[in-house]
């Protein structure tokens, strides 16, 4: 099962958060309808879909007001180099 693209990731986050639009390069903390529990809800779904990839809450541990979804996607790719 290949990893989601950045666009698919954005769509998944929209679905769990109810946010109208999640832009890959917008800082996550600037998206009004997305909070840390939405990120955890998305992560829970990801962990179930990709149990072989060691993604946990540390993905978001150092999140600040510059961290974008693209950064998170890059971290996911780094966790699963064989999938790239």
């Amino acid at each position, binding site marked *: 099962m290949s990893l989601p693209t950045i666009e698919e990731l954005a769509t998944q986050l929209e679905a769990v958060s109810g946010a109208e639009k999640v832009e890959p390069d917008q800082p996550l903390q600037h998206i009004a309808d997305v*909070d*840390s529990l939405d990120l955890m*809800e998305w992560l829970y779904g990801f962990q179930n879909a990709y149990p072989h990839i060691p993604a946990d809450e540390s993905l978001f541990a150092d999140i600040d007001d510059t961290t974008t979804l693209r950064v998170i996607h890059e971290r996911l790719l780094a966790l699963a180099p064989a999938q790239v």
Partner: protein
Amino acid sequence: MNGFEITGWGMAVPERVVTSTQLAERFGVDEQWVVSRCGIRERRAVGPGQTTASLAVEAGRRALERAGREPGEIAHLIVATATPEQPSPATSAFVHHDLGIAGSAHDVNSECAGFVYGLVQAMGLLRMDPRPVLLIGSDTHTLTVDPADKDLSILVGDGAGALVLEPSADDPVLGWNLGADGRCTGSLKVLAGGSRMPTTEDTVRQGLHYARINGNEIYLNAVRYTVRTVRETLAAAKVEAPEVCHVVPHQANIRIINSIVSHTGLRPEALVTNLDKYGNTASASIPIALTEALDAGRIHGGDTVLLAGFGAGMTWGSVLLEWGAGWGDNRKGSA
């Protein structure tokens, strides 16, 4: 006599209300942020003279009255709490004395899963010794939270809930499951005050006697393990999730509860929630919600009732009951 029936129930919450409006003002945030974060609009907080044991006594007395039982008829008292009356002796000893219980007394500390753990213990006790059991969940977490800690202050409330269980020929338990993952001790913790870090002037100065939470870890683990325990209990009972009539989850956070429902296939209409009024009352949240649902006439004989809890540690557990017709009709003066 391998079964039991629930003959009484009751709850107690402090009179003092702390609204999310008040907390939003204290922390300089929008009230809507508080409500959207956890679904809690107000919670109750103990006042002078109110303690974990005093709330437990009040709830226990109401449950006994409902059951038509005298305290001296109770063979075993179990008090689930993570905020004890004092480090020693057990909170149940204080409750035992104040209620005038004649039998044994012990505490269960499985954090917010404590009531479900206590219920499973009561089920076992009733098999070995078929005499009445009083099971109480009581917590006063508003006293353990740093007043400056926004994340925990918006969540916690104080209260107690109780059940009286009595032996019966019929076994109402369709399935049950308990579990724990001790790797997760860091998610929600009070560092000081135990043998690992005894209380000193320095620990108090650093605020290490206050509870600390990693909300993200708690969210993930609460969803993961509660989904697991619900699935295992339903599988043991051979009951499909949509068939469950009433779901009484630990009232931690509406976001966690909704996620659990979404991932298990339980019906949202089956949910019994009241955390908007009381917040997270820890070991007390399940019996308080159950008591309100019963008093509202929502649960009827033959209904399936799923109780599911999770707590720090992590601990988790669930019990699926078939509610008995006539349970709770023994109140003094009842026909």
